């Protein structure tokens, strides 16, 4: 009997301490509320800072489940988490609190990526088609920088902190 009590106590400890990966949090007045429509324009002002953004979960990434795609009629953004998101969030309107991160693509980045792709193609990791597709992608980045007259491109995503279902 004693062994059963000890065993089930340990089992209860495991299950009771199992936090759901997503935490619900009340809307905060400290953090700026961005819209998906303005996200790309405003994100540069809030890099590495916590913000809130609302949208519909279009899907949770099938591979790994640690990324979700937040959308509305006017824009979209990727939300990256450290733990899997619940599939059941798909189609839900949520308010996400997260930290904006920037991926900056400049000529140095392009050169590094090119070197990596050449190496992978040489080692036989990437087929000719994959290699050419990747190199074409890098050229597209260069063309975009040239046509915009800038020395870098910025892509933004959000590192997940918490969410609230609306």
């Amino acid at each position, binding site marked *: 009997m004693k062994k059963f009590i000890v065993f089930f106590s340990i089992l209860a400890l495991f299950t009771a301490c*199992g*936090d759901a990966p997503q935490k619900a949090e009340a809307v905060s007045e400290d953090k700026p509320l961005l819209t998906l429509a303005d996200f790309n324009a405003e994100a540069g002002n809030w890099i590495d800072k916590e913000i809130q953004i609302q949208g519909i979960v279009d899907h949770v990434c099938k591979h790994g489940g640690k990324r979700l795609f937040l959308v509305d009629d006017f824009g979209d953004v990727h939300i990256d988490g450290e*733990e899997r998101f619940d599939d*059941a969030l*798909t189609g*839900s*309107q949520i308010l996400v609190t997260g930290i904006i991160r920037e991926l900056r693509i400049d000529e140095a980045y392009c050169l590094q990526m090119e070197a990596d792709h050449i190496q992978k193609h040489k080692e036989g990791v990437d087929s000719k088609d994959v290699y050419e597709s990747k190199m074409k992608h890098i050229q597209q980045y260069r063309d975009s920088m040239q046509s915009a007259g800038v020395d870098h491109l910025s892509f933004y995503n959000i590192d997940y902190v918490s969410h609230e279902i609306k």
Partner: protein
Amino acid sequence: MGNFLFTNPVVFMKTLRKWSRILHRDIGFFFIGTSLIYGLSGIALNHLKDWNPNYAVEQIEFKTDIPLEKNTDIKDNIQALLKDIDASARYKQHYYPQKDVIKIFLSGGSSVIVDLKTGDGYAEFLNKRWLFYHSNYLHYNPNVWWMWFSDLFAGALILFAVTSFFMVRGNKGIIGWGGFYTALGIIIPLVFLFVLL
């Protein structure tokens, strides 16, 4: 311990065999459930290219003349559409990924996409695969506590391998047929590595 091994090797081996069996048996019982979870989900996830291991997916194409443009009646119109294509479908949300496209989310992960210009629609109904969905969910490490528990399970698998060496004596043990099967079980993955790497 070293003295005991060399001065009483027979007693030492007897004790080792006894404890190997006890640990293999009792820890084995404890992890039966976990073994089934990882075994089932392992098979399911091994064949990701061939099937969706979490959901049975039903896809249907249809045509509709129900107006689905943005207006005050949109939710009523969506309900009318859903009645046409599947009476049991439950509306959750919708949005317009493009000017002339509406995407409607249903409960359970299903969705409907309609081209507003042509009325052509495509619905994808998802049904969870009982047992597979739940075991895959755990296999994906849903939280840190399960991760540690599954590390314990992995450690137990190593223990099962090691205790197997000592559990059986004689012709059927590691110095007999058991050794042959062990060698075969090591050679096969090595051959794959040699061929594929």
